[in-house]
């Protein structure tokens, strides 16, 4: 069996037509089955009630026959990427804000779902969280030096090996500005393209606002080179989210937990398509284009592709 990169399968499905359920619901693409999560909206409103036959999917330019999978029975692994200062530096409030977001996330998940938190501070770390008491050590309580290692943290978040019967969603709460990572910003998009996870981002303050709350620092006004670097970091994050088929939500200083609810709802209103590739050669990058046969102003967001590893020659 060839080993393949996978596409992220996400949440809920059409409420009208009973979906097709694979004998084994596996959320990892293989040479036999490729899985794509598709979020469909018209005018900003989720389009419900679609069937498999409503979708058109091209794999490297070749049309494929797709089926829909029921997503509501499939467990979710949600990874939150957060920043937070140690408690004694919580003047900027990021630490408390991160604790609140993670705590609310736990309550939004189902009994079979799991919450993982990754801290994007200078010392990136993360782990699964079963109770609120586990949050402070993950998010703070240690010596940190400020700075946000966003690329490193997203890599750590996306790289989690998830069992094939679960879906992995990563939500980053950030201003999109990486000030500390060891990895180059440009590494992020290839990492996301090779990951099984769906990446979305809730943006506190984008570059246009002139503000940042990254690393607990509120700064207004930057010199041009710093501003350019900030914008590049932000645009790379946007590209990475688009590559995974996720969403970017600009939340400013508004209610972060409400934003999380909206993003999770977005996931749950997506469709999970699966197909067995026909007429396309296996190894290498496969570009996927998902559309509706009757577009009528609908916008489809889905992963841009997946990678098939050449099988070993033995």
């Amino acid at each position: 069996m060839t080993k393949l990169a996978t596409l992220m399968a996400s949440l809920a499905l059409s409420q009208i037509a009973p979906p097709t359920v694979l004998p084994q619901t596996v959320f990892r693409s293989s040479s036999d089955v490729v899985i794509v999560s598709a979020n469909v909206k018209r005018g900003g409103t989720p389009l419900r009630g679609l069937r498999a036959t409503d979708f058109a999917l091209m794999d490297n330019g070749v049309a494929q026959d797709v089926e829909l999978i029921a997503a509501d029975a499939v467990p979710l692994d949600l990874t939150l990427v957060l920043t937070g200062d140690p408690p004694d530096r919580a003047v900027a409030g990021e630490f408390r804000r991160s604790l609140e977001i993670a705590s609310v996330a736990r309550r939004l998940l189902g009994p079979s779902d799991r919450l993982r938190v990754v801290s994007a501070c200078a010392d990136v770390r993360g782990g699964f969280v079963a109770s609120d008491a586990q949050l402070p050590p993950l998010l703070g309580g240690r010596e940190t030096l400020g700075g946000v290692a966003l690329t490193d943290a997203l890599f750590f978040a996306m790289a989690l090996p998830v069992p094939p019967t679960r879906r992995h969603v990563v939500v980053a709460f950030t201003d999109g500005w990486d000030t500390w990572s060891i990895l180059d910003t440009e590494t992020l998009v290839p990492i996301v393209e090779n990951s099984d996870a769906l990446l979305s981002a809730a943006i506190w303050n984008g570059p246009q606002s002139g503000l940042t709350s990254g690393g607990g620092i509120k700064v207004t006004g930057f010199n041009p080179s710093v501003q350019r670097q900030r914008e590049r970091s932000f645009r790379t994050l946007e590209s990475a989210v688009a590559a995974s088929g996720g969403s970017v939500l600009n939340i400013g200083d508004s209610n972060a937990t409400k934003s999380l609810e909206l993003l999770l709802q977005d996931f749950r209103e997506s469709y999970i398509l699966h197909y067995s590739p026909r007429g396309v050669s296996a190894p290498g990058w496969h570009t996927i284009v998902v559309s509706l046969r009757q577009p009528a102003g609908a916008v489809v967001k889905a992963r841009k592709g997946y990678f098939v590893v050449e099988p070993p020659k033995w």
Partner: protein
Amino acid sequence: MAAIDVRQAGFDSPLQRSLTAYAAGDWDEAISLVDFREVTTGRFLDGLDQWIHRGGELVADDRRMIACAFALDTVWKTTRGPFDALRGNVDPWGRVTPDRPDRVMLTSHVAQGIVASWVAKTLGQTQRRPEKAELERLLWLAAVSVASDGSAWHRLREEVLPIASARLVGEPRLAFAATLSAILPDVGALRTLDLLHRGDVLHQEPLSASARKKIPEAIAALDKIRSDSSLGWEADLWAGYFYLRLNNWNLSLERLERARSAPEPEGVAMAAYLSGWVYEQRVETDDAILAYRRALTAMPNQQEVVWRLAALLYLSHRREEAYELLNSMPASTPKTRSLLVTLERGDGRLAVGLLTSIRRALR
């Protein structure tokens, strides 16, 4: 004994007591007797001068040597703050103001060059004594080391090395320091780092025209030093680094490969890390992975190496290996200094060993 807060008590008296304790061999207690966090470098050095000239049982030259040892030992300790391990190679000369001793705190890395310069002047006033030759040699090398760690290349070149070279004729480490201090201010740091702006490594650092012009001269000087077998691998490491800065990958790899003979794990790790980086630029992923693994074998838990290796493994579809590597990093703020920072501080990496040897020699 609790450290004396110099804001509350007069400073001079406690410093004198501290020096007396140091002279008696109570090294650590002597340095901890005074809380130096609120002391300026000027006040500190004035206090040392007073102790030297106060006289006492010890002859003046002995007092000078003890004061020099104390100065280097103290400034090394006071400058080990949380940001020290991250500070890149930027010579404070002409960039950091103020740099007057009376306005530079002893906790600032700027103090390192100032103290090294004072040590050079003070040690230069001593008479040469055969029985103190080894101690004197160690003090000179420690002064160079402390200044290098503070990236005080200008002071090193202009104020320390001229006197040191006249006293330690033919010492290869001084020739090495002279080569580095001549080029490193122009070359700057491989990566810049501050809380608002982290420069990408080895992608976009500007290399000035003067640096490009000087690097071949530096490499030629290193090749002369290379003939000293004890410094051969260091000369190769630095030559490999300079070729890397010029993006001359072939020559860089050639020199870094030779540097693999380093007897120290840090040297092996630095050569391997830089080699891995070069292989990445040449998109030779398998070789880059092997090089990074060599670096980690020599010095485990180097964050830079772990992240770069993990990313390469992940993008090579060895995802489980990548994640296992990331997850294996100890869950604590890394205490080990970045390999790049260590490299770019030249002889700074020798300071701890030299200061220990000085204490032994003072007995």
